[in-house]
């Protein structure tokens, strides 16, 4: 059993589509914000997969660096969005 870059891209596409589905399906806008971390997770998996499989001779660490930044950005965006939602919902 083995996994290739195409398999990693399939998983990344699944996570990204699950995030988009969450963002458009939830009637509550604050709950729809939970799709943002899933979208960023899909992008991060794709970056790490490229860094693992297809970056020979290139900047190897860029994929992992960007995955770290995406994880931090996802929690920051979610906190900002839920903070705004809490303020607007209190009006």
């Amino acid at each position, binding site marked *: 059993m*083995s996994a290739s870059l195409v398999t990693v891209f399939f*998983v990344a596409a699944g996570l990204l589509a699950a995030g988009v589905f969450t963002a458009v399906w939830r009637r509550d806008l604050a709950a729809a914000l939970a799709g943002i971390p899933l979208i960023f997770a899909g992008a991060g998996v794709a970056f790490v997969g490229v860094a693992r499989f297809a970056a020979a001779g290139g900047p190897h660490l860029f994929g992992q660096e960007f995955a770290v930044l995406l994880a931090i950005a996802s929690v920051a965006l979610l906190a900002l969005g839920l903070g705004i939602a809490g303020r607007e919902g209190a009006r």
Partner: protein
Amino acid sequence: MDSLHAIGFYASSGVSVIGGLGVALLAGRGRRGAALAVSGIGLAGIYVSLGAGFAALVALVCYLGCAALVAGPRYRAIEATVGAAWRQLGAVAAGVLLALLAFAAFRGSFAQAKAFTETFGASDVGQLLFARDAFATEAVAILVLVSLVGGTALWRARERSR
């Protein structure tokens, strides 16, 4: 990738995608938060099986934080005014997006290379951000600062007009 890592990759992928679907479909904040935590644990497993241990640690902490935020009581529900037909159309569009991305990955014929297995830690992130990518980091920081100041100014102007 050896069999053990491949099994870990597939198992973690299943856990992560199932958790993501749970975030979309489950009712209740607690359940959605738990589903997001499960998805984050699966994501960390994917990173570990791909040799990105530090990214897995950061992702685990960040996604558990996201789960705590989603499950917490500090925000109120805001009902969207979009009709059910538009939501269903958006869900179909998400399915089409998945099909397009899967087709692009299948037909892409991406180059295969031998696995890269160097260690990666916080010092490497610092070196990349503040040495090699210093100009790009400063540009992004300026953009974020300008957007935050602009957003604050717009919010204050709207508050005064009320």
